[in-house]
């Protein structure tokens, strides 16, 4: 290849950026990762979510999520003051490509609610699995051994949040793993990394220095469907009472 000095200088910044991404794609190994030192959860800051769908796309790309199924999705709620318990909810294609423009001339309020597996401490899905193929890891992540799952879908029925599905090709249960392959290497999840507003934050409840502790102390934080008593670990800031 014949490259003169002019072309070399033009290509240099592009090469530097490319090299940066190559490095970013190969995170440091974490040989010292100890499961018992962590208790993973996630914080969703509802007022910060703009419904862009970046998280849904990033998740689908990172985890090779099959078309029409979702490890995470975003819902848009429209709540009017005359019928607060029956909101109008949409999630076109899981909110992957964003949302249609909202009607701003009525007296309702609009907000976005990202959803994902709640990684429940007392998860109904792990309780019902007939062979124990789905389990909670010592660091608090509900996982599935897909080489062991029968594909009976009992866990899909048992999840109160609609987070599970049967993978159409693998014929086994599938769901959010909290990007376990990333977080055990010191990275954050694909959805948190892709969120432009910081509405999603991975949190480690066993880490005393994690900002989650200060946040939980000072904000109005709730979990979805607390009446289910599942020990859900995805915390929602400013969760509206109409959210299901």
């Amino acid at each position, binding site marked *: 290849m014949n490259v003169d000095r002019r072309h070399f200088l033009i290509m240099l910044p592009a090469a530097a950026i490319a090299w940066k991404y190559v490095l970013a794609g190969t995170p440091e190994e974490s040989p010292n990762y100890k499961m018992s030192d962590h208790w993973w959860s996630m914080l969703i800051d509802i007022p910060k979510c703009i419904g862009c769908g970046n998280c849904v796309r990033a998740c689908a790309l990172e985890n090779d999520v099959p078309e029409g199924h979702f490890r995470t999705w975003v819902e848009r709620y429209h709540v009017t003051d005359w019928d607060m318990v029956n909101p109008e909810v949409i999630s076109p294609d899981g909110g992957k490509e964003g949302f249609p423009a909202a009607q701003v001339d009525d007296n309702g309020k609009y907000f976005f609610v990202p959803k994902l597996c709640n990684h429940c401490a007392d998860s*109904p899905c792990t309780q019902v699995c007939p062979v124990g193929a789905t389990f909670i890891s010592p660091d608090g992540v509900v996982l599935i051994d897909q080489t062991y799952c029968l594909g009976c879908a009992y866990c899909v029925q048992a999840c109160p949040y609609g987070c599970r599905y049967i993978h159409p090709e693998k014929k086994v249960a599938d769901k959010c793993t909290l990007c376990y392959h990333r977080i055990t290497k010191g990275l954050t999840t694909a959805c948190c990394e892709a969120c432009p507003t910081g509405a999603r934050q991975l949190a480690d409840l066993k880490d005393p220095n994690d900002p989650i502790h200060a946040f939980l102390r000072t904000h109005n934080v709730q979990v979805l469907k607390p009446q289910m008593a599942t020990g859900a670990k995805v915390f929602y800031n400013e969760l509206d009472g109409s959210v299901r």
Partner: protein
Amino acid sequence: MSGVEGYMYPNEITLYWSVLIVLYPYITGLVAGAFILASLVRIFNVKAVAPTYRLALLTALAFLIVAPLPLMFHLGHPERSPEMYFTPHATSAMAMFGYVYMWYLMAVLVFEIWLDYRRDIVHLSQSTTGLKRLLYRVMTLGSDNVSPHALAIDHKVGWIVTLVGIPSAFILHGYVGFIFGSLKSNPWWNSPLMPVVFIFSAMVSGIAAVLLIYMFTAKMRKMPIDMPCVDTTAMYLFYIFILDFSLEMLDLIHRVYEADESFRTLNFMVHTKLYFSQIVLQICIGTLVPLLLLAIVQVTNLPAIIRKRIYVISGCLVQVAVFSMRWNVVIGGQLFSKSFLGYTTYKMALVTKEGLLMAIFLTLLPLAILWVLLKLLPPWPDKELAYIEAAAAPTT
């Protein structure tokens, strides 16, 4: 999205428990019900229904052999199903299936049938020839002692097995109800009454099935129908059906009166998507009509031919009711969103692994197995065999 009204969580749009999962509790229900009818003779000494005793046991066995097949065809990985035996998950209701099934099949049903037929099997192993002889010899399991003392022991052990079999039949089917009733995620299923309702509807469907099969086989063999037998069976069917219907209505009234957060959604579903299968088929045509017909028989003195027709019609309608009930539970429980904001639609496939044709095949398969069992182990009472032989004698 097609078939979706309102809002469903995106992963809820596909139904994962298909018509095969409807068939599974229906078939196990027939097993449990047929066995309870047999126990009426053995344990509760209801002599009138004795002609159905062996037929009921064989019917239960034929359906029990098929019972796990709908589950197997439904699984994404059926080849991994032995893991349920080897590494069962202690907290899972479903993990119990393998053990309950094997216990019921081998320790109760096959054992009881073997004990009851042992004398016949020994006799047949001596009177037949060729391959049949070999088969019956294997079935004797090397025990060809048919002395009165040995038969008395058979009878005593058989009585104990039946006694153990009654709670086993309740466990077999009650646990199927528990699988649904224990899920807090689904308000349509979540009810402590679910196992009880499943058991009573099982008894109703099983008794009605044996009644139908008894009348059909009698007609095929050109034998007279034992009217006291079918009258008594129908009487038990009537009273157990009243209990079953009362329990189901109790569940319904409780839901309507309590009207919790899910009520609005479920009420709408019953009045729209489940209207035909629940209100029309299950309650009106499948329950009220046969209850009325059976009640008429109880309080009037109708001629035998009319009673027989009423029993056939009622027996068929009961099957419609119980199958619809299973359908409404299994499919109904997946038609609404757990967000209570929308509904989806079940589209049954035709020729797939979980399609309509497979469901029809699995419904007919137990009848084919029963036909083989009837040939192999004729359940007809001795006096009937004597009648057949006497009728056949002049022509030979």
